[in-house]
């Protein structure tokens, strides 16, 4: 009970829409660690959070077409998985499913908040800067508690029982399929990232990274980043210098 309350509070802090929430709690990697800490298993939480995070590699914060909600997937996926002693593959499937529902929390947050600018307008009419700042900071916190905190508490408290019941009813071949889904879903995360990063003239570097890892078994990502950075530096250095002879001045009106 108390642990579920903490998960609810974490959900509030995570979704309070400021850099501390974004970078310390939002990413499943971070959320997994905190949830793990709440349930006394920080290492397990971290590993589960990291697995969930891979499926969300291409998640973008600009809205757009996110298939599943990053916030609730990482936080609640870990909270449910850690209580039900799930494998990381199963946790990924549960997390992505939770996130599909969680998308509605974001829409609710943005919609309810849409009442606020009109109140801020009234303070602007009076020249009341403090009033604008208070409306900016306070009422949306209540919205977050309502659409994120409370549902998170309920999911952390009742979720494991529901999920355990579901899992117990599934036959062995179903569980095998379920586990495979968890191993396949990270492909969506990587594919979404490819969409942003890939440029036809640079795609060869993706193939190179894959080949090095697939044939040599090298999967140290930091090492990969160093090699990638070196190649990037060399590539840029070899580019011909662009001729920009004061062309800019002529463009000015």
């Amino acid at each position: 009970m108390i642990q579920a309350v903490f998960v609810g509070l974490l959900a509030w802090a995570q979704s309070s829409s400021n850099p501390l929430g974004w970078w310390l709690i939002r990413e499943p990697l971070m959320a997994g660690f905190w949830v793990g800490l709440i349930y006394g298993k920080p290492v397990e939480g971290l590993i589960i959070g990291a697995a969930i995070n891979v499926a969300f590699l291409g998640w973008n914060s600009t809205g757009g077409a996110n298939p599943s909600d990053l916030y609730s997937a990482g936080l609640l996926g870990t909270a449910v998985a850690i209580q039900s002693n799930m494998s990381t593959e199963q946790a990924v499937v549960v997390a992505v499913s939770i996130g599909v529902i969680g998308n509605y929390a974001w829409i609710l947050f943005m919609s309810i908040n849409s009442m606020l600018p009109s109140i801020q307008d009234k303070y602007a009419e009076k020249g009341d800067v403090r009033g604008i700042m208070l409306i900016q900071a306070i009422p949306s916190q209540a919205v977050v508690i309502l659409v994120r905190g409370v549902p998170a508490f309920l999911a952390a408290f009742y979720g494991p029982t529901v999920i355990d019941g579901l899992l117990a009813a599934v036959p062995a071949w179903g569980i095998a399929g379920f586990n495979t889904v968890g191993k396949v879903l990270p492909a969506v995360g990587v594919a979404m990232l490819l969409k942003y990063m890939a440029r036809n003239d640079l795609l060869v570097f993706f193939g190179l990274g894959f080949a090095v890892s697939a044939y040599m078994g090298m999967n140290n990502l930091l090492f990969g980043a160093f090699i990638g950075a070196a190649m990037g530096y060399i590539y840029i250095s070899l580019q011909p210098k662009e001729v920009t002879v004061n062309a800019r001045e002529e463009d000015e009106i």
Partner: protein
Amino acid sequence: MAEKVETGVALTPKDIEMATLRWWLMSHLSYNYQRMQAGGFASMIGPIMQKLYPDKPEEVIAGLKRHMMFFNTEPRWGAVIHGITIALEEQKAKGEDISEETIIDLKSSLMGPLAGIGDTISGALYKPVLLGICLGWASTGSFLGPLVFAIGMLGYDYTITRLSIRKGYQLGTTAVTTILEGGLFKKLTTFFSIMGLFVLGIMVCKFITVDVALQTVVAGKKIVFKELFDQIVPKALPLALTIVSWRAIMKGHRVINVLLSLFAFALIGGALGIIK
């Protein structure tokens, strides 16, 4: 005190620092569909307006109203706009002939392009590369993962926001042409793309762990398909799944449909024992 409004009040570096901090912490607190970050912008510039017009409340009101208009950009790189706007408001308060329309036009014409730059560098390049490395640590249970990620992102977020506002304030309108037309942006994205794509290639092998499970017996000899594949292209299945999904997204299929297709493929394939 005597009337000294006409000479105007000069802003100090501390004013800029405080504006940066307000924007950094408050930009998205009331994020909403109606006006996105407008309240954040007004909260950022409100105290500046009060300082610029100590004896002219009507000017403060006019300023707050023009900065409560729809605004949305990438909060870090886009903060160049904030710096420029502060500079313009300061000039205007000193009596320069800067119209309200100039300031409004400038904000709305710049927020799109800068969001494009910022989202690319922050969301599609810097964060995924850092995240990828940290996930490598975290998946083995190392606390280095969350620690490095938290420091790397918070540091990046604040540093870029602060630099953007300062540069925008110092350079005024020329700042934007420097960023938009200079080769820096192109170089940065090329560099991060190469680094990111290389790391992404490794991630395919590291994180997509599905494999071929099929085996059959032909003439008393057991054939394990995985071993056959591994001799030609190891990890071919993860690569194929990634490329098919990517092409599908590029063709305009909705991501949720790609996700559901993979879900169904894996569920059936796993249940039948073809993949594991």
